[in-house]
């Protein structure tokens, strides 16, 4: 199995209850769970979904909103 694509985890590992997405990497619980068993085709599928969600949420920067990263 060839899987070279890197995990998008940025160490802000908390789920947003409303969206069901990690507020750091924009993945679902299922996408995080299966990551290590996924080949590059599956990984690029997840990364494309991540990019799309980011754009839909904050088209200008692609960053999560300030509020959503404030988890202290």
């Amino acid at each position, binding site marked *: 199995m060839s899987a070279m694509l890197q995990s998008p*985890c940025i*160490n802000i*590992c908390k*789920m947003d209850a409303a969206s069901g997405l990690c507020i750091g990497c924009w993945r679902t619980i299922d996408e*995080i769970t299966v990551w290590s068993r996924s080949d590059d085709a599956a990984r690029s599928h997840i990364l494309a979904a991540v990019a799309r969600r980011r754009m839909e949420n904050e088209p200008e920067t692609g960053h999560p909103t300030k509020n959503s*990263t404030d988890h*202290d």
Partner: protein
Amino acid sequence: MTPILPDSLLVLERGWLSANNILFFEGEQATLVDSGYVTHAGQTVALVGHALAGRQLTRLVNTHSHSDHIGGNAALKAAYDCEIIVPAGLHAAIADWDEDALLLSPLGQQSARFQHDSLISAGAEIAMGGLNWQALAVPGHDMEALAYYCPEKRILISGDALWENGFGVIFPELFGEADGLLHTRQTLEMLSRLPIDAIIPGHGRPFASIDEAFERAFRRIAQFENNIEQLAWHAIKVGVSFAMLERRSIPRERFADFVFSLPFAVDVNARFLGMTPDALVAKVERELLLVNALRLEDGMFVAG
């Protein structure tokens, strides 16, 4: 190359603040190795719950007692009432919740207190995922750490004793508590004699390029043996980076106080480097910016 791992185990690959979690399936039951950092515990419980798919988590086993490996223990215990099994050498530090021995105070980290239910010693065997795993003493990064090795499948769960690129900071050497360099070398030599096809490290992806990983690790330990200041400097950078991962962001003008608030950084500098406080902070800033462990955004330092 990504190794092919047995179907009876699933690696939940996490980042640097949380160590990887390894879930073993045993019919209707399951065992987990390591639980991540405390601020990520909610996600850890959710990931494990999703992967369990109705199975019962009956055991949680730790490789060692650092905050990024035990931070979810209390939450997993509360969620699943699993038995918590820790390396025998950590009994007192956990039972007494010794925040110095657990490195929580020196590194400015948090955890959630838990009690273990039983101990596992080097030399013991533990069945996980229908496979037999040997507990191996891997002193160095942590003097009481255990790795878990499956001879039948030639898989090593290495914790922070060996990564694809290096190994965890050799804390005992820096605290003057033990000959950490010597133990790290001996641990690497012991591990390098095992037949291994795949390593599941505490951080980073599982990997199969075993020889290359040992080459890098031996090169690195030789550098530290030749120049202890290099180890000291590396450790300060890692300590500050890790603390910043938890903090996320801090105004630039408060960064110096943040560094001085980490006893580990101050002690290691005093013991090995003897830089002035200003010089220390300036160098930490410069080098962390250089490797993108820090970014400057609108007057704030943000973790990379």
